[in-house]
């Protein structure tokens, strides 16, 4: 019974998302949803390695970029359709993960974090300089995506956002299902045992190297799927977008803000962060403040906000992370869970609020 409720909610949410494009015509809403899906996928993938297994990789942009570059190079230069290229991307990501894993997993804790950053930077610098393969800093621009045909019928020509929406949705449902399955399986127990105490886990018959690499491979496969989807959807990639340190940090932040080690944490994190960064970037917040009459557009403050708020999204991100770490160490989700668990108990214990009866 306990399990059936969240599952029912999940199915309901998936169904609602599945029919959404039938009712919403706004391409902006669909665009936002696709970005949220991509962020949920990368967040959930990172969560399997960082949240379950406790290996805080701050280099996940490497897998995102490797996926994106493989798919895009195959499509643009070799004329391989992206729905094949995506799987080639996951293959390259698996190889990348095993190479990175075999090097970085010799290190623990903060040293692993530093190594993961360094390796991701190596990939960025390579992509920047291997101009024959990647076009270097110019990036790869998609000129046209071949229409998806089954037999003689055309399924989609990829002109509207709807096919991308469904691709993103299905990848997202897949990674959430995989997260849930892993969590309940032997793998999940072993991942968490390694997170809690690697030496104790080792002495209980768990080979940490094998299981850490397993977690990394699962994580890398889905991160590369998200990267490929991003590349084909946006139609342009370059090293400073798909292989950037910013991206690696953002992937971690989705989980920190939502709640590390939980299935719904990355979903909550992405659903909060994507609209927030979009609102900051598009100056929507300043406009709203002006509209509400809180800030005069002509005043110094209004001018300052208009000028600078759009560039301040990284700053605001940073402040948000500090606030979350200080006041909600288990993420937004953990905070509300604790809050709802505490409230009835406090009422039960005499029902007296502090300060009352003095």
């Amino acid at each position, binding site marked *: 019974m306990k399990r059936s409720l969240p599952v029912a909610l999940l199915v309901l949410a998936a169904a609602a998302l599945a029919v959404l494009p039938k009712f919403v015509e706004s391409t902006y809403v669909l665009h936002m949803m696709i970005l949220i899906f991509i962020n949920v996928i990368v967040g959930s993938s990172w969560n399997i390695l960082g949240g379950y297994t406790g290996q805080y990789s701050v280099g996940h942009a490497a897998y995102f970029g490797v996926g994106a570059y493989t798919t895009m190079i195959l499509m643009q230069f070799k004329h391989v359709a992206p729905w094949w290229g995506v799987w080639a991307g996951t293959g390259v990501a698996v190889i990348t993960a095993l190479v990175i894993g075999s090097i970085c997993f010799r290190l623990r804790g903060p040293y692993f974090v530093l190594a993961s950053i360094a390796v991701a930077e190596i990939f960025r610098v390579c992509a920047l300089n291997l101009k024959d393969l990647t076009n270097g800093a110019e990036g790869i621009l998609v000129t046209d995506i071949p229409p998806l045909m089954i037999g003689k019928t055309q399924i989609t020509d990829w002109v509207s956002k709807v096919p991308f929406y469904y691709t993103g949705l299905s990848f997202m449902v897949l990674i959430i299902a995989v997260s849930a399955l892993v969590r309940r399986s032997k793998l999940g127990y072993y991942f968490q*045992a390694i997170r*809690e*105490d690697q*030496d*104790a*886990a*080792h*002495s209980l*018959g768990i080979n940490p190297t094998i299981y850490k690499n397993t977690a990394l491979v699962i994580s890398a496969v889905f991160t590369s799927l998200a990267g490929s989807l991003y590349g084909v959807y946006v139609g342009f990639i370059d090293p400073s977008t798909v292989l950037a340190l910013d991206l690696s940090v953002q992937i971690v932040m989705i989980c920190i803000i939502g709640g590390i080690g939980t299935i719904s944490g990355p979903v909550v994190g992405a659903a909060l962060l994507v609209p927030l960064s979009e609102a900051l970037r598009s100056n929507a917040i300043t406009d709203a403040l002006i509209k509400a009459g809180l800030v005069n557009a002509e005043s110094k403050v209004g001018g300052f906000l208009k000028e600078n708020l759009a560039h301040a999204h990284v700053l605001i991100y940073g402040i948000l992370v500090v606030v979350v770490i200080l006041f909600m160490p288990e993420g937004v989700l953990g905070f509300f869970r604790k809050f709802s668990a505490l409230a009835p108990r406090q009422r039960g214990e005499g029902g007296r609020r502090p300060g009352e009866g003095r």
Partner: protein
Amino acid sequence: MTAESRPSSGASRHLLPASGAKALLQIRHVSKFFGGLAANSDVSFDVNEAEIVGLIGPNGAGKTTLFNCIVGYYPPSKGEVIFDGRRMNGLQPDKICKLGMARTWQKVRPLTNLSVLDNVVVGALRRTNSVQEARAHAHEQLRVVGLDAKASLLAGALPIGERKKLEVARVLATRPKMLLLDEVMGGLNPAESEEIIQLILDIRKKGITQMVIEHDMKAIMRMSDRIVVLSSGEKLAEGAPKEIVENPQVVEAYLGAEE
């Protein structure tokens, strides 16, 4: 040098309480050096099946180092560890656990953010791939140590006495042939120690061999079939508890020489 102090497998065989017992663990001339420091030098003895062997010695005698060499936490610098007829030098701890030897830690290492049950499930998954089966087996082991009522608590919330029991339940769940218990009674009150002694004797009834490091002399004398004394990394004596308390060298190591 007395006969007891000489590392000789033949000598220890003569001390067997039951006839026909087989040596499950053979430690052959094991030495461990950290730089120039010999934490263990040329230690040899056997542990027979279903036996409880106490490992005692003053602080810094090399007891935990010897444990670590046996379970593969680090390899011995010299010598051999043979378990169940198989040479174990160079094997990783997970392999050694698979072969049927499990250890507890002197400083307990619970998986703090997992429930008490899940801690034991991790051990139980050593022998099965089914989480459901592992949970059933874990509940069984928690009943053995008397922690079943606390199965759903977080392991980090347990007091020290119960953490020690959890460690035992967790290694029992791996279905070992042999347990190495490193000071499972350290920091416990007399009532809790008594429970652990009973637990260790119960485990022996299941046919599981045990090697126990302990500082509580009364407890170790009561539980052990044989005792091995280490001092400054070397084996000082080996024998039945009664022989050990009467051994002048052991008394000297613990209390200092008479002037």
